[in-house]
């Protein structure tokens, strides 16, 4: 008995180990049988990049990785070169304006001129550090920015679109903050489909921080719940950005430079309507999206959808995920130092920065109710060189067109970003200052507008008088993400009320809001008269019936 126990105790563990060692040949042998067991495969890709010979090497730079990628994906860089994500340029065919990040101004950090190394941390390329970047280079295309699946790939602001490789890097220099290097080999072997995290690495952080710019896009959308976004709900439909922004040949549709305000084509049907923007609500839901067992309700809601973008009702507020967005930025107050003569930062009770010596005053907001405008999809930007006039009315950074009777407009929810930014009062133009950087010309270092603007303007060969003043601006951001579940949509009473969300919007008659006292009295009198008529008629009929029966 003891011998048996000894054998069991000694040999059974050995058999476990032996089984493990023999596992590979056993599986290989099984392949020769009639019904081989299905081998373990990745179901989210047709390729396991860990097995690629080209990727079995250490990579010392981003371009080295790209070179390896292009050995198989021979057309990828060429496709990328044709996209806005690469060129940061967009020629609006409607009005001929040359837009894109390379050309436009905004009322956040204003423009990329002489701020290249910082802004291009979000370029899908390597090494864009000045205006002479080589846009024809294939190896400078950054495949990993969009295809990293490890979540460890980062391109810090100030490094010209390059990741930190090799040794930790102090960023910004002198700050004592060390950025960890990226293991490019590990990242390259684990590339995969683009996820919300990939897009979000830039689009969630537009304007220089989480949620700053868009209002309807921030890090809360990386793994949102249903309350925040019914489509991207990580435990539900789990849409990626690409589910709607259906990409072809690396070109991502659904640009804000030429948005689709009113989709007439209805649902996107395969084989038809290749020109249709797939990133609209109607592309999936069609133009009569509401279905209710109560036919009258269905009809009423679908009538609303003829004049109002879906987003009006289905996005009751933006910045709903716990991340605040900037609502205004006043550059004119920048430059104030603390009592110790050093740069200072002030925070509000919730910890949000509301003043920074380098940047001025901010107002932040969360759960913000949008402003509503008629919008037909036409947007015209105020570009460098366009004349601006200082007045009580803000200068539009982008002017959205639309009216209730042009047949092309819908009511849209908007984030309106308000700012006060530097301009040239002599030439009467907006300006592109050099703000970022650790050099003597950048405003964040020297706090001298004249120097910073002169440098930024010289870089783009634009005239600058040397005089600086500040001008009020506003910029429109159509709201389209953070779609609430249907039970959380904007309630009827939020518009059909005296304090309507759509207050002040021209060209609409809304019961409950557009009430006219006399019309209401007449209506109620008519209803009362009809009711009395019915009651009297009924009473007469009943009386006559009783008499007849009696």
């Amino acid at each position, binding site marked *: 008995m003891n011998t048996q126990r000894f054998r069991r105790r000694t040999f*059974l563990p050995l058999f476990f180990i032996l089984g*493990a060692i023999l*596992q590979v040949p056993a599986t290989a042998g099984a392949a020769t049988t009639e019904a081989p067991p299905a081998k373990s495969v990745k179901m989210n890709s047709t390729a396991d990049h860990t097995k690629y010979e080209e990727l079995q090497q250490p990579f010392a730079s981003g371009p080295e990785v790209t070179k390896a990628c292009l050995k198989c994906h021979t057309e990828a860089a060429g496709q990328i070169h044709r996209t806005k994500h690469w060129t940061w340029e967009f020629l609006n065919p409607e009005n001929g304006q040359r837009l894109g990040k390379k050309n436009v101004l905004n009322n956040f950090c204003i423009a990329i001129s002489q701020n290249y190394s910082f802004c291009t941390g979000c370029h899908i390329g390597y090494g864009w550090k000045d205006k002479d970047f080589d846009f024809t280079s294939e190896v400078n295309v950054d495949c990993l920015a969009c295809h990293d699946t490890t*979540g*460890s790939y980062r391109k810090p602001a100030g490094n010209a679109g390059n990741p930190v490789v090799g040794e930790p890097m102090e960023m910004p220099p002198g700050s004592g903050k060390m950025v*960890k290097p990226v293991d490019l080999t590990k990242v390259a072997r684990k590339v995969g489909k683009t*996820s919300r995290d990939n897009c979000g690495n830039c689009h969630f952080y537009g304007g220089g921080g989480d949620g700053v710019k868009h209002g309807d896009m921030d890090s809360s959308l990386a793994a949102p*719940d249903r309350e925040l976004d019914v489509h991207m709900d*990580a*435990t539900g439909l789990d849409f990626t950005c690409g589910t709607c922004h259906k990409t072809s040949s690396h070109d991502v549709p659904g640009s804000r430079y030429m948005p689709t305000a009113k989709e007439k084509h209805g649902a996107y049907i395969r084989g038809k309507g290749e020109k249709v923007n797939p990133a609209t609500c109607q592309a999936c839901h069609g133009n009569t999206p509401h279905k209710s067992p109560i036919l009258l309700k269905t009809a009423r809601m679908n009538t609303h959808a003829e004049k109002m973008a879906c987003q009006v009702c289905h996005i009751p507020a933006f910045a709903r995920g716990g991340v605040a967005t900037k609502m205004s930025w006043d550059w004119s107050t920048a430059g104030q130092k603390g009592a110790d003569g050093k740069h200072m930062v002030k925070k509000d009770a919730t910890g949000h920065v509301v003043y920074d010596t380098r940047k001025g005053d901010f107002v932040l907001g969360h759960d913000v109710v949008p402003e509503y405008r008629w919008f037909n999809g036409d947007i015209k930007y105020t570009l460098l060189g366009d004349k601006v006039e200082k007045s009580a009315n803000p200068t539009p950074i982008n002017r959205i067109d639309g009216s209730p009777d042009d047949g092309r407009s819908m009511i849209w929810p908007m984030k309106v970003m308000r700012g006060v930014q530097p301009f040239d009062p002599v030439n009467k133009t907006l300006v592109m200052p050099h703000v970022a950087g650790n050099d003597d010309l950048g405003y964040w270092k020297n706090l001298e507008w004249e120097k910073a603007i002169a440098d930024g303007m010289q870089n783009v060969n634009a005239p600058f008088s040397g005089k600086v003043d500040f001008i009020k601006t506003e910029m429109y951001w159509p709201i389209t993400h953070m779609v609430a579940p249907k039970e959380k949509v904007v309630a009827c009473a939020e518009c059909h009320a005296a304090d309507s969300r759509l207050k002040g919007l021209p060209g609409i008659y809304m019961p409950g809001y557009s009430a006219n006292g006399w019309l209401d009295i007449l209506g109620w009198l008519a209803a009362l008269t009809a009711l009395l008529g019915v009651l009297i008629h009924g009473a007469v009929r009943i009386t006559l019936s009783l008499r007849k029966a009696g």
Partner: protein
Amino acid sequence: MHLKFPMTLMALMIGATGMTTAQAYEGDWKRGRVYYRGVCTTCHTAQGSSPISPNARTMDEWSAYLKADKHAGGKDTVSQYVGKAYRDSIKESNKAAEKYADVPDEELMEDVRVFLLKGAKDGDSPASCS
């Protein structure tokens, strides 16, 4: 004697299966993120205790915590709250538990582990609770 062969065969099979799983599975940090936030954070919040951000601990601290497998000061285990039985018990009211109801315990545990290491204070991408 008749029992010895089946036991030996079973030992060989279990050994092989265990090794295959350990060799093949690499944690999915995104799945770990959804489970951690959807179950761990949600429960901690609902019970009034403060949720623990991944970036509140270092990688070493998370590794030691998970290795010790002690939850609530040792009253129960961490693995228990990742296990199928627990997921089954809450899946009616918890979407993350419902979504991952059929994921093997060791895989989901590994998912949570890689998420916590990645999101740790000194991880590749320090992460908050939300």
